[in-house]
C-alpha cells in the first residue's frame, strides 16, 4: 500500500459485507423518506432552474445584471466555479489510480459522479450566456454552406474543445468504472425489469479474467487521458481571461493559478460530499476517518498552492509598475468588491491553516465547515477575478459596478439544485461507492497486513 501503514478498512469484516452494504443502497434504499424530502427540495430548485432558463431564452440575456463594462457576469464566473469543482473528481479517480493510491477506491465513484454533474452544470452556462444561444453550434468547426470556420485564435474556441473533450472523457471514465458494479447490482436485483436495465448497462459483464484484463486497460487509458485534461481544461478556462488585455486578467500566472484553484475547490467539494454521504448512510467503515484525514491534507496542500497564486498575482500587479494593474489590485484590496477578495483570503487561506493539525482534520464537523468555506471562498474568488478585471478597467469614463440580478441568482440556485437533484438520483440508482475497488483495496490491504 502506498499510503501510510495504518489500515483504512479496518472496520469491514469481509468483501461480501462491503458489497452487500453498498449494493443494498440502490436496490433497497435505506432512507426513502429523507430521500424524498431531499428530492422534493432539489426538485423545486430544478423548477427554479427551468423557469430561469425559459425566462432567459424568452427575454434575452438582458434579464441578468450584465452591462458595459461588465458584459460577463455570473454566467462566466459560475462556469469557472462549476468546472473547477469537477477537477478534483478526476484527480482522485484518475491520478490516484495511476499512482496506485488504493484508498481512493471508496470515494472515487461519487467524486467521478460529482465531476460529470459539475461539468454538465458548467457546460450549460456558456450556452445560456450567449446572446443568441440557438446559434451555439457556430462555434463548432463543421463543414457548412457559409464556408466560415470558427476563429481558432479565440480562447472560447479552445474552451469549447477542452470542455467537450473533458465531458466525454469524464463520462466514459465514470461509466467504464461503473460497469463491474452495474453487473453486481444486476446480479442482486430481484425484479425482472430492474435486472434488464442494469443488465443492459453492464454490457454483458461476467467478471471473467479476460473481462477484467480488458477492462483494466480501458480504465487506465481513460485515466491517462483524464489527468492531463484537468490541466488543459482549466488552463483554457483561465485563458478566457488572460488572453484579454484587461488589467487583472492579462497575466501568464493565470493557467497554473486557475488549475490549482480548481483542484483545491474540487477537493473541498469532495470532502463535503464524502462527509455528507458517510454521515447520512452510515458508511463510516468505507469512508473512514483516514480518508477524511487525507482529504484534509489535500485541501491544505492545494490551498497553500492557491495562496501562492494570490500572493504572486498581487505581487506581479504591484511589481509591474503598470498603473492599470496596480489600480485593479487596489480595487481588489479596497474597492467595491473588496468583500469578495477578503472573503477569498479568509476562506481559502486563513481557514485552512487549521488543517495543519491532525486533531483538527479528524473533527468531522470542523472539516466539513472548512470545506464549505473553501467552496464558498472559491466562488467568491472566481467572482472577484472576473468582476474586478472589468468594472474599472482602463478608461475611467466607462467604470461602472456590476450587480447580479434576481435572474442571475435564480439560475445559479437552480444549477445548484439541479446538481444535487442529479446527485440524489445517482445515490439512489447507482452504487455510489465502487464495490469491486473497495473489495480489491481490502484484499490488498489484508495481503499486505
Amino acid at each position: 500500500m502506498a499510503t501510510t501503514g495504518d489500515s483504512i478498512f479496518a472496520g469491514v469484516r469481509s468483501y461480501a459485507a462491503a458489497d452487500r452494504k453498498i449494493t443494498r443502497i440502490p436496490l433497497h434504499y435505506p432512507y426513502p423518506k429523507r430521500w424524498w424530502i431531499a428530492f422534493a427540495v432539489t426538485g423545486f430548485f430544478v423548477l427554479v432552474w427551468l423557469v430561469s432558463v425559459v425566462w432567459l431564452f424568452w427575454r434575452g440575456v438582458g434579464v441578468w445584471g450584465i452591462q458595459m463594462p461588465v458584459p460577463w457576469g455570473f454566467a462566466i464566473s459560475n462556469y469557472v466555479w462549476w468546472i473547477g469543482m469537477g477537477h478534483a473528481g478526476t484527480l482522485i479517480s484518475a491520478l490516484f489510480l495511476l499512482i496506485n493510491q488504493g484508498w481512493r477506491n471508496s470515494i472515487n465513484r461519487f467524486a467521478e459522479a460529482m465531476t460529470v454533474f459539475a461539468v454538465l452544470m458548467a457546460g450549460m452556462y456558456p450556452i445560456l450566456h450567449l446572446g443568441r444561444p440557438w446559434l451555439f453550434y457556430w462555434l463548432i468547426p463543421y463543414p457548412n454552406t457559409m464556408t466560415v470556420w470558427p476563429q481558432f485564435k479565440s480562447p472560447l474556441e479552445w474552451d469549447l474543445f477542452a470542455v467537450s473533450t473533458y465531458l466525454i472523457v469524464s463520462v466514459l471514465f465514470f461509466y467504464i468504472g461503473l460497469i463491474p458494479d452495474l453487473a453486481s447490482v444486476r446480479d442482486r436485483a430481484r425484479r425482472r425489469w430492474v435486472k434488464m436495465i442494469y443488465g443492459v448497462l453492464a454490457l454483458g459483464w461476467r467478471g471473467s479474467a479476460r473481462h477484467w484484463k480488458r477492462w483494466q486497460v480501458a480504465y487506465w487509458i481513460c485515466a491517462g487521458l483524464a489527468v492531463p485534461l484537468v490541466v488543459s481544461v482549466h488552463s483554457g478556462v483561465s485563458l478566457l481571461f488572460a488572453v484579454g488585455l484587461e488589467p487583472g486578467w492579462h497575466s501568464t500566472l493565470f493557467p497554473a493559478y486557475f488549475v490549482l484553484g480548481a483542484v483545491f475547490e474540487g477537493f473541498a467539494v469532495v470532502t463535503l460530499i464524502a462527509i455528507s454521504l458517510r454521515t447520512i448512510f452510515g458508511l463510516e467503515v468505507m469512508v473512514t476517518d483516514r480518508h477524511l484525514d487525507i482529504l484534509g491534507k489535500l485541501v491544505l496542500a492545494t490551498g497553500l498552492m492557491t495562496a501562492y497564486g494570490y500572493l504572486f498575482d498581487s505581487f506581479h500587479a504591484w511589481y509591474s509598475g503598470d498603473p492599470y494593474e496596480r489600480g485593479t489590485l487596489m480595487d481588489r484590496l479596497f474597492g467595491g468588491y473588496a468583500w469578495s477578495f477578503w472573503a477569498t483570503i479568509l476562506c481559502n487561506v486563513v481557514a485552512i491553516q487549521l488543517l495543519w493539525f491532525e486533531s483538527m482534520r479528524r473533527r468531522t464537523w470542523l472539516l466539513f465547515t472548512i470545506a464549505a468555506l473553501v467552496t464558498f471562498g472559491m466562488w467568491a474568488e472566481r467572482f472577484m477575478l472576473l468582476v474586478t478585471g472589468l468594472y474599472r478597467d482602463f478608461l475611467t469614463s466607462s467604470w461602472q459596478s456590476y450587480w447580479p440580478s434576481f435572474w442571475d441568482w435564480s439560475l445559479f440556485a437552480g444549477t445548484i439544485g439541479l446538481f444535487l437533484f442529479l446527485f440524489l438520483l445517482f445515490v439512489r440508482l447507482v452504487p455510489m461507492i465502487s464495490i469491486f475497488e473497495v473489495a480489491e483495496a481490502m484484499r490488498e490491504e489484508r495481503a499486505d497486513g
Partner: protein
Amino acid sequence: MSAIAEGRRLWRSIDDYLATDAGRAALEAEFPALAPMLDKASRRDALRLMAASAALAGLGGCDAVQPEEKALPYIDAPEFQVAGDPLYYATASLFEGYAHPVLVKTMMGRPIKVEGNPDHPGSFAGTDIFAQAAVLDLYDPDASKAVTHLGDIRAWSAFEGMATARADVLARDEGRGLAILTGTITSPTTVRQMLQLRARFPQMALYGHEPVGKGRRTDATRLAFGRPRDLHYRLDEARVVLSLDDDFLGPGPAQTPNAARWAAAREAARSAGAASVRLWTLEPTPSLTGAASTDRIAMAPGEIEAFLLALAHRLGVEPGTPVDLPPDRAALLEQVAGVLEQAGERALIMAGAHLPAKLQALALRLDDALGSLGRTLVVSEPVAWQGEHTGSLGDLTAAMRRGEVDTLVMLDVNPVYTAAGDLSFVDALERVPLRIHVGRQQDETAAYSHWHVPLAHAFDGWSDARSVDGTASVLQPLVRPLNGGRTVHEVLAVLAGEPGLDAYEAVRRTWVQILGEDDFESKWAQTLSAGFARGTAARRRTDRVRPVAPDGAAPQPDSAIEAVFRPDPSVWDGRYADNPWLQELPKPLTKLTWDNVLAVAPALAGERGWSNGDLVHVSTGERLVEAPVWVMPGQARTVVTLYLGYGRRRAGRVGRAIGYDAYALRRSDEPWRLAEVVVQAIDRTMPLATTQLFHGMQGRDFVRMTTSEDLARGERVEEEEPLPSLYPDWSYPERAWGMTIDLDACIGCNACVVACMAENNTPTVGKEQVAMGREMHWLRVDSYFEGEPEDPRVHFQPVPCMHCEKAPCEIGCPVNATVHGPEGLNQMVYNRCVGTRTCASFCPYKVRHFNFFHYAEAELHQPDVPISERGGRLAQRNPDVSVRARGVMEKCTYCVQRISRARIEAKKEGRPIRDGEIETACQGACPTRAIVFGNLVDPESNVSKAKADPRNYTLLRELGTRPRTSYLAKIVTSEQPEED
C-alpha cells in the same frame, strides 16, 4: 376537362374567378366600392374599374410622400432618382424660429438624415443636436394628427369655416379682442401675413413668448443703440474674449456658427504658432463655454455684476464710484483689464443675454471703448421680426384677466407649460371665450384650447425662415404632411380672409417680393436648390453705444442660496421632450439622461450632506418643486441651477412625466434668477441615469495637452513608432481608413453623437437600461474634470471605435463575427454574431454595445400601442444600415455604408476615391470640424496630414492595440501649471 376544372374550382383567368361566389366575395372584400357596380357592369368593366382603382391607389401612395409642387433637390434633378440612392434637399430646420440651414437626405421620399449646408454664408457646415434630431421629430408617433374641437376630431374645413366666420365678426370691430401669441418670428411669409392681419385688424394685439429665446438682449440693445439690434461674435477676429456668463458655445440658434468661428480662431492661432485665443468665462453654473475657456471662474450672478462694474470703472468707461472687490477678484480684474486693453479692438467682451439689460448695455459700452465694436462684435439689424406693439406673455395674461381678449390664437407655443409660475396663466386663459392652438402635439396648451390645429413639421410643409445671420431660407417639404399637419401660413391665411390659400402659394407670394418678379422662377429654383437666398443677411450697423447709467453695485451676495434658470442642454425649453434621441443624449457635463436635476456646488452639497439623487424641495414663497440634487463641479457655491424643459404633463409617451417642472418657480419679472430660494432635503432619493460615473482621469493621460511653446520646439506628443507585435502586419495596397479627432477644437456639443444615432439606426434604450450601463451610443463624448472640484477644468473626448490595427476583440471572437477588413476596418458581422460578448470584455476602450434585449423593436414603443401606430419612427431608419437584433454586438463602423457607396461610385467612374469624398456622420455634424477621416495610405490626404501633426497621439498606446482613431492633443497656455 372543364367539368374537372369546375369541380375542383380551378380558374383559368381572373374572369372565371370573378364569376364564382368566392371570387365575388374576395372582390367585395378588396374593393367594397365596386361591389354594387358589379351587378350592373360586365366582368370586363369590373376589371377595368379594378385596374383603375389599383392604379389610383398607387398614385395615392405616391401622393403620400411626393409633394405636388415643385421642390427641387440640391444637386440632382428628380428624374435621376435611382431607387436606393439618396437625394439631398437643401432646406432648414427650425430652432426657436430661426432657420438652421441643412441638407436633408431622403431615401425614396423618406427624410432620414440631416447634414449641415456648407455653402451657407452663416457657417453652417456642421449642425447642432437639434437639427440632427429634427428628422426624428418629423416622425413623432405622438404628433397630433387631426384638427380637434373640445377634444373631438373635426375636419379642417370645419375649422376654416369657424375661423373665417370669427374673423369676419372681429374685422367689423377692427379686430378688437383678437390676440395672437407666437414665438420668435423670422419667417418673411409670417411677417407678411402678420402685416396683412394688422391691416385687416388694426386693433389686434400681438404677443411674443419665447421661454428661453434671447433673454433680455433686445431690451439691452434698445438701451445701448436706441433700437433693437442683433449681435454677432466674430470670434475668428478675436484674440481675447471675456464672457460674462454668455454661453456662446452652448446650445442655441447661434451655436453652430459660433462654434465654427471659435474653431477657426484656434486653427488660425495654431497655424501661426501663436498662443490660442484667450477666453475668460465668469459664470455661476458650468457651461460648454466654460469648458472651452482658458480661464473659468465660478461666480454668483451678483459677483459677475460687480466684476463688470469694476471693469467698467477700471477701463475708465463708467468713472462713477469704484466697486470694492475681494482681493483675489481685484487681482483677476487687473489681469483681465490689462490683457483686454492690450488686445484693443481684437478683444471681445460679451454678456449673457439673460443678464439685466443695463449690464449687457454696459458690456457693449466697453466693447465700444476698446474699439472692438464692429471688429469682433458685429451689430446688425435684428433678424427676428420686431412686431410693433408686441407684448409679453405677462401682458397677455393681464389682458386676458381684464377680459380684453376674446379670441386667442396660439401659434406653435405652449404657454400653459412654459408660462412663469407666478402668472397663473391657466386661470387667465380660461377667461378667453375662444382659444385656438396650433401646435405639433396635443400638449398642455391644446388641453386648454377649444380648437387645436396640428402643425406641420419644418420638413413636411412649405415655409421660410432666417438663420441667425439673417440669410433667408425657404423650407421645402420633403414629404407630404405626414399627419395632415397645417403650416402657420395656412392658419394665418384663414384669419386674413384668404381661406384655402395653401402654404406654397403664401410662401411664393412673399418671395416674389424678395427675389423680384424678373426671372422669378429661375431665382426661386436657385433658392430652393441652394437652400438659401444669397445677400439676404441682416444689414450691418455701425451704431455707437449710448452711455448707460448702471444701477451701481448690487449688494454683495450673502450666504443665502439663489437659483438660476437654464434651458436643458438636450431638450431645451421642453419642446424636444418627446425626442428619444435627445432624451437619451448624455448632457455634456453631467452625462445625465432622461432627467433634469438641481445642480449644486460640491461645497454646498458637502455642507448640507447631499449627494447625487437626493430629493430636495426647492421653494420660493408658496411655489415649490421637488428635484433631485446633482453635485456639479464648478458650480458657484451659493447658486443652484434649475433646468427647464422637464416635468411635461401632457406630451407624447416619451417626454411625459419625467423630471420636474422648473417653470413653476419662474417669475415673469425676473425669469432667469431667483434671489432667494429655500432648498430643503426630504428624506428620499431617486435613481438618475448617467452614462459616465467617473470624471477624473486618475492620473492617467487619456486627454493629453501640449503648449504652443512645446509645439514650436517640435516636440511630439507621442513618438511615431508603434509598439512591436508578435502578429504580422496587415498590408493595405490601396486604402486604409483612419480618423483623427482634434481635442483642441472639440467643444463637447454632442452633435456627433446624435448624428451617429441617426445615421446608424442606433436604438434608444430608456432610462432604466441607461442606468444599468446599457446605452447604445456608438460614439460617446467622455468628459473629464481636472483640478479642484470648486473650479475644475473640463476636457471632452469623443470616443468612437478605435479600429485597432491589433484588435483584442478580433482575437476574442470565436465565430469570426468581428474581423479585420481589407481596408483596415474592424468590422462587425452582425448576422454571424452569437453574442459571447468576449469582444466587449476584451475591448480596452469599451466602445462596444450589446443588444441585451431587442432594443430596436422595443424603442418603437410599448406593447399596448397597436403595431400600426408604432411604425412612425421606422421610416427614419437608414436603409443602408442593418437594424441589429437581440443578442448581437454592435459598434462604430466608421460609417462603412458611406465608404461602400463611395467605393461603388468611384469604381463606376473608374477613379480612386477622392480625399474628403467620404464624410462619416460624426464628422459631417461637427460644427468645429474636429473630426477628419480618410485614407492613411495616401500621404496627401487630410487625415494623413493630421496624423503627422506633432499633436497626434493614440489612446492607451501602451497596450499596443495601434488604434486607427487618434487624437490631436489640446493646446493649453503654458502659464497654467500642469496639474495632475
